[in-house]
């Protein structure tokens, strides 16, 4: 093989490996997670800073599914892992805006398939919105 051919071959190989590494990094990097679900009366969107064990920051937005103005509500978030029978205690949501709440604390005890229960309480009803979340501690 000529030197130039060899150079090209090596270049292609290196580029391929770099590409693979980039793909893998992009896949496993912790990134904010946006989850959406609906209950009987409310819809909720949860933004988690990361789906990992340890302290998690959760921003929760709720809205009435029928488009009506939201009632005065309190919002909490709890987590459960159906496969293992784990459940974590409710974290209270601190109101940070109209229909927006913030919760902070430990939700996930271990990696795996979890569910978040967003509990919206009004004077009249308790609505539970359940969303799936994959907890993956990745390499870190």
């Amino acid at each position, binding site marked *: 093989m000529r030197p130039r051919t060899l150079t090209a071959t090596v270049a292609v190989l290196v580029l391929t490996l770099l590409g693979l590494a980039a793909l893998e990094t992009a896949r496993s990097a912790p990134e904010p997670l946006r989850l959406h679900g609906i209950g009987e009366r409310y819809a909720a969107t949860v933004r988690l800073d990361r789906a990992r064990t340890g302290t998690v920051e959760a921003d929760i937005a709720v809205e009435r599914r029928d488009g009506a103005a939201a009632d005065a509500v309190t919002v909490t978030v709890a987590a459960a892992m*159906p496969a293992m029978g784990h*459940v974590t205690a409710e974290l209270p949501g601190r109101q940070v805006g109209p229909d927006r709440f913030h919760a902070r604390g430990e939700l996930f005890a271990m990696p795996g398939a979890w569910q978040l229960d967003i509990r919206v309480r009004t004077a009249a009803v308790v609505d539970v919105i359940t969303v*799936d979340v994959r907890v993956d501690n990745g390499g870190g």
Partner: protein
Amino acid sequence: MSIRSLTAAALALLVSSVAAVPAAAHAPDAAADTVLAQTFAGTELTVALRHPERVPGPLRVDLIAHLPAAAVTIAVSVRPVTSDPVDAVTVSVERDTARTYPVELTVRGTGAHWLELRAPGEVSQLPFRVLVPRAGTAGWLATGAFAATGLLLACALAGAVTGRRALAGLLGGAGATAFVVAATVALLTATLPPAAPEGAALTGTAGPQGRPYAQARIRTEPATPAVGDEFTLRVELTDGSTGRPVDDLVPHHAALAHAVVTSLDGTAFHHVHPRRVAPGRLEVRLRAARPGPHVVTVEVERAESGGQLVSGRFEVTGDARTVAAPPLPQPLPGVPRDVVAGAPVRVEIDTGPGRIQPWLGMAGHLIVRDDAGAFLGHAHELASMNADAAGFAPPDDTVAAYGPTLRFAFTFPAPGRYLVWLQYVRDLRLVTVPYAVNVRAEPA
């Protein structure tokens, strides 16, 4: 390397790269049907969902009405679990007409969905997943590398033909490398498990022990129904470890839940398939046929777990003299005069002329209850069970494939009197025949 050998090598690689483009990984069960029995608006329905293979795509749903059937208009809709319905149609079920009602709905995305059936005062939510096969990162990489191989080699060929030897060599080398990458990835991919289809569940980690057991609160609405009246039987399932509603039921013997409701004296018998109406909540409407205490047994299966039974009791008020006398149970045919506890006994029943259609994936069921209402078991017909074990997909509920003689084997666990109900379907009519058998202790 001479021009000729370079050209030949490039051509050979080009041909093999075209031939070796990897087929998309096979996605498991992406196109499997979901078949679920439902007791809806007084009719035993089999709901068969033929899944779409792409999205947006058609979801075909066959509603098979068994007799006796009530006249009812059913609104059928489909929605992802996270949003409102995306498509809906209505079906008019005719009174006492055995037939299939086919409908077609459009689904727009993958993942967990509900098929919802609605009629006045009743709702049923049937879970299913829309799965679409996908090749995965490795698949795309292999395909891309094969494409690059082709492109580079074609250019190398052009270079060689036009006498640009250095360029041809360079491109040829790059093409060969791309081919090696593509072939390696393709070969590795073939040995890896296929990529999960798009829309697949987050697989849990329950392990061989399965998920925690479910506990049930079984009630009726009204609390004590009167004989002759309609009432709702409500089953609330909670997780034994977390206390949360159990909302992960999977098809088990072709239904989300099987409920056997009998009067303690055995004169009333219902085998029904409650509807999921809310997380952890199942309901079914029944008509109280006989007064007195009633026993309820519900069989369910949680995801990643085995089947389990939950049970409860309720009372029906009224006077037995005001309702028609029940049919007297006959001696169980085909069994020896002396049935001994603890040893399997063969039961052979001739159902009369005509072939039998499958129901719940089986040619027939034998439901066995002890006198006290504490034990409940069921046996499946042997021929259809053998076909099932051999990997044959059970025929559609409309295909008369079995009988007329049904064979079962069952072990009565302890001495005493047992009530036995045979159930099978002919001409889409559900037939229930009550039997009774006395079981004695094994001689010492």
